[in-house]
């Protein structure tokens, strides 16, 4: 029985924080987590990883390459599925697990980045067109393979929408590893990424290889894409890569701070998003996709923060004006 059954917006937060405390203390075991909590944990972990990687993507101006990877991940998953099927023929049963997703991520990142580079460097195609040409071709191949072999058109829809209700405890574990690996990698290579993002020439003279880190960054993006594939579909994680980062760039320009703020913003958005979904289900009996609602919340973070920054500026200005006028009065 889901403890959130019948909860509205405020109730949701009360129950959630009470249960979160209970889980931390150990009164409720992990196995007893409600589906809403699983969703929050999976999305939260993905969002933290996205915030770290997304900051680098936005600063390096390769966000559209991340978009390309979000498309090609489908082909990666299909190919690795065939590979694993072929490998497990001798064993007689099909291994369908998270290793497959890992293989898919690596293949996708490598193939997409390499092909885009090939178009740009060897064929001398303009950058935008080479990104667009490569990912549409690979994605189309992916869709055809999926439709022909699985004889299932719904899978195509799931690529866009995600299937967040099918998440279970294993996914929490998987996304925990993903998030941990991504955050650790970013922390480990933070200096290199930072120098590369702001001064590629300096980075080269200091001996860090731009191409290597480009591939590494794409690999990380693709890992997140794989983690997000089941939860929010192939495309919606892009919003977690960009929106919170853009919002926090309005507030600060220090790279590490952008990462932290972006993670916090997206965590808040996810909590609010899941709560709104629950609220709508309880009060109005409208069942909406949690993935969709949370990503709309994340998208709204940018205008909200922008308005906040504007309002703060205005308040500061009026205060300053008043101070000045008071000062003038005092002087008289």
């Amino acid at each position, binding site marked *: 029985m889901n403890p959130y059954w019948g909860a509205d917006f405020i109730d949701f937060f009360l129950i959630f924080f009470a249960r979160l405390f209970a889980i931390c203390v150990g009164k409720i075991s992990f196995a007893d987590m409600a589906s809403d909590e699983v969703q929050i944990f999976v999305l939260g972990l993905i969002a933290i990883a996205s915030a770290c990687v997304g900051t680098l993507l936005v600063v390096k101006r390769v966000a559209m390459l*991340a978009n390309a990877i979000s498309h090609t991940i489908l082909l990666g998953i299909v190919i690795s599925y065939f590979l694993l099927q072929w490998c497990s023929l001798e064993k007689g049963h099909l291994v369908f697990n998270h290793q497959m997703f890992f293989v898919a991520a690596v293949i996708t990142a490598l193939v997409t980045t390499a092909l885009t580079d090939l178009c740009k460097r060897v064929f001398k195609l303009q950058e935008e067109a080479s990104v667009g040409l490569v990912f549409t*071709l690979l*994605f189309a191949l992916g869709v055809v393979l999926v439709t*022909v072999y699985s004889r299932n*058109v719904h899978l195509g829809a799931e690529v866009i929408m995600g299937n967040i209700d099918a998440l279970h405890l294993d996914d929490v574990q998987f996304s925990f590893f993903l998030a941990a690996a991504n955050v650790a990698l970013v922390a480990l290579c933070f200096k290199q990424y930072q120098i590369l993002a702001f001064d590629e020439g300096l980075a080269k003279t200091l001996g860090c290889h731009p191409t290597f880190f480009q591939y590494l960054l794409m690999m990380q993006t693709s890992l997140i894409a794989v983690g997000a594939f089941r939860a929010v579909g192939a495309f919606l994680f892009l919003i977690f890569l*960009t929106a919170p980062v853009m919002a926090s760039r309005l507030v600060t320009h220090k790279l590490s701070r952008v990462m932290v703020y972006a993670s916090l913003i997206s965590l808040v958005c996810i909590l609010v998003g899941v709560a709104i979904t629950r609220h709508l289900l309880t009060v109005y009996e409208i069942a*909406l996709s949690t993935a969709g609602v949370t990503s*709309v919340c994340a998208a709204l973070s*940018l205008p909200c923060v922008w308005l906040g920054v504007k309002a703060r500026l205005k308040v500061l200005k009026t205060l300053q004006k008043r101070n000045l006028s008071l000062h003038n009065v005092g002087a008289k």
Partner: protein
Amino acid sequence: MSDSFGFFTLFCDPVFRGPVIGSLLMSLATALVGAIAFLGRKSLIGEALSHATFPGVVVGVILAEVIFPEQEAIALLVMLFGAFATAFLGQLCIESILKIRQKADAALCYTLSSFLGVGVVFSSYLQQSHVAWYRKVQLFFYGQAATMTDLHIYMYAALSLGVCIAILLLYRSIQTSFFDPVFAESIGIRKKVVSSFVSALLCVAIVIGIRTVGVVLMTGMLIAPAVAARYVTSRFSMFLQLSAWIGMVSALLGNYLASEMIMKGSQLVYLPTGPATVIIASGIALLALLLSPSRGSLVKGVRRWRFRRSCLIDNLLKALWKHETVSLHQIYGWNIANKWFLHRTLATLQRGGWLQKTSKSIYGLTEDGRKRAAYMVRLHRLWELYLVQHLDHSLDHIHHSAEEMEHFITPTIENKLTKLLLDPTQDPHNQPIPKKELL
């Protein structure tokens, strides 16, 4: 369905007429607009806008079903209008994000995914409550040309015609502002106006395209024909025409492929037309990238390789001419090319009768080879003399230039040089120039 499924049945059969003619019209419009967007480096804006149409489609479907049930024509119009409206909103969104000093890349990515998110929210609502409507929305994910009717033909014909006429009317302005922005400004063509016009066209083209190719793959149809056409021609008018033709051919083949696959499978597989069309268009683009006569990489590579080989042959013959006989080991020692390449070239020369093996791995020139080598030396020394006598080069600077020029001098140039230099016998280094009559 008859077994002999001819190509022309596609146009006449009432079942296939709708999808085929509909997608031909759509690819005409999208390829033309895509080509213009490609030149303006706006290809990826198309990607963002095509995803941005998705919520509009869903809202359009809902509105059409609620307000005008059972009226197909109006429903289609409402859907298209909804898609156009959100694409336009997407455009505004991108512009306003750029105004708060965010990076263009991130702005596109943000717009794309946030609009898609809104679309997903709406369609998940439909998925639970109105499954029949949801199916209609689903068609727009990856495109489904097979269910298009004559109604679609009329609608798309009108829209595509509008796009073509708009492009024709503003052809000169677009051309001028792309190729010479400064001149365009000076004769009163505003860059901003042209740019926003192109954006508006992009929105219309995307709206036409999403029914057949789908929201997700729309970019492919915008980019691929343009890329293919760009690599074949450099004339603007030709580029537009070719792009349109390539787009239409791939739409036709894509439809054919999709319908073939539906029928040939033992079970019914509804292959979406979008991926099939995009695969063919991208395939054509890749072929053009590789094989285009003027700019294809493979063609260029082969040309470069051939030139390198002919240079190597010339240099080898010259070296052999100077040394009379040379062992393979010595040739390797000159380090003029890698071993494999040298080996192949030596074998070719031997087969051509320019070269002979006197004993084991000792090479010498044949009579023909000696003549050809002497001719190369003549060209080299003539050029050196010309540089010194007529261009006032100093003696120690002429060798490298001559080393490069000797591969380009044609018999006509050689004749002119001979006349100009009064049929010389000695080069600036006091080496004899081989006589023409002896060669």
